[in-house]
């Protein structure tokens, strides 16, 4: 959808949020 809107550099994060957290990188809480 974003690419259709003209954005040329759209990339999904491999592993999603879990991949980021499992790699030990910081996260914040939405609660």
């Amino acid at each position, binding site marked *: 959808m974003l690419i259709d809107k003209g954005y040329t550099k759209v990339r999904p994060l491999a592993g999603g949020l879990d991949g980021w957290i499992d790699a030990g990188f910081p996260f*914040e*809480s*939405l609660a």
Partner: protein
Amino acid sequence: MTSLVHYVLQYGIPLVFINVLLEQLGVPVPAVPALIVAGALSRDGKLSSTHVLLAALIASLIADYVWFLLGRRFGYRILRTLCRISLSPDSCVRDTEARFERWGLKSLLIAKFIPGFSTVAPPLAGAAGKSTLAFLIYDGIGSIIWAGSAVALGRAFHRAIDRVLAALESLGGWALIIVASLLALMIAVKWAQRVRFIKQLRTLRIQPHELKEMFDRGELPVVLDVRTPGARRHDPRAIPTAILAVMEEIDKQLGDLAPHQEVVLYCT
């Protein structure tokens, strides 16, 4: 009576049961053709349509309940496993999540008619903490509607199906080879689509360490959290600076972002 129809008549109900069970568990063996043939045979009085529907219902409930329990146990993570084994690259977890959030358990009434949604809806219901009884009721009704439609189709077109069966019958042992080859071809085509899709994704994806390095270099890409509100409630963690994307308002949220700006999106 020669082999093919003989086997279908002898093992018709167990075949329907196993076919539906495997399909609902996620194995790429379509059950609708078997249900249609069973419907045609029931119209000719060779099989009981009640038994066919019962077999389909019980098989569906068993498979869907397994996914429901897995969803309840492992939450939204089970969806990733499902995507890994799915042969439908066009079905996206986010789309199915959004559909489930919009319709709730009622979506189970039509889930089996939507490719990709059928296997994903039960674990979503489990992950969303829906009641077991309500799940079984909606899933059972949905299974009956789905299997009943296929059986009704078979009954309506029983003459044409009888002709196809007779033609296959005249081929003798070749009939099984043809049917098996068609099934293998269908799975191979879907598998090839899936491999191409994954290859494409791999070249597009950004690894977590690459994103972290961008942050460390001060490049500050736009990070979009594209999870549904339900998934965010289930897991309220987020990557710092991420924009909580609302698809209906995405233009407003992105404002006048330059088209060449790096955008990284993530879901569960």
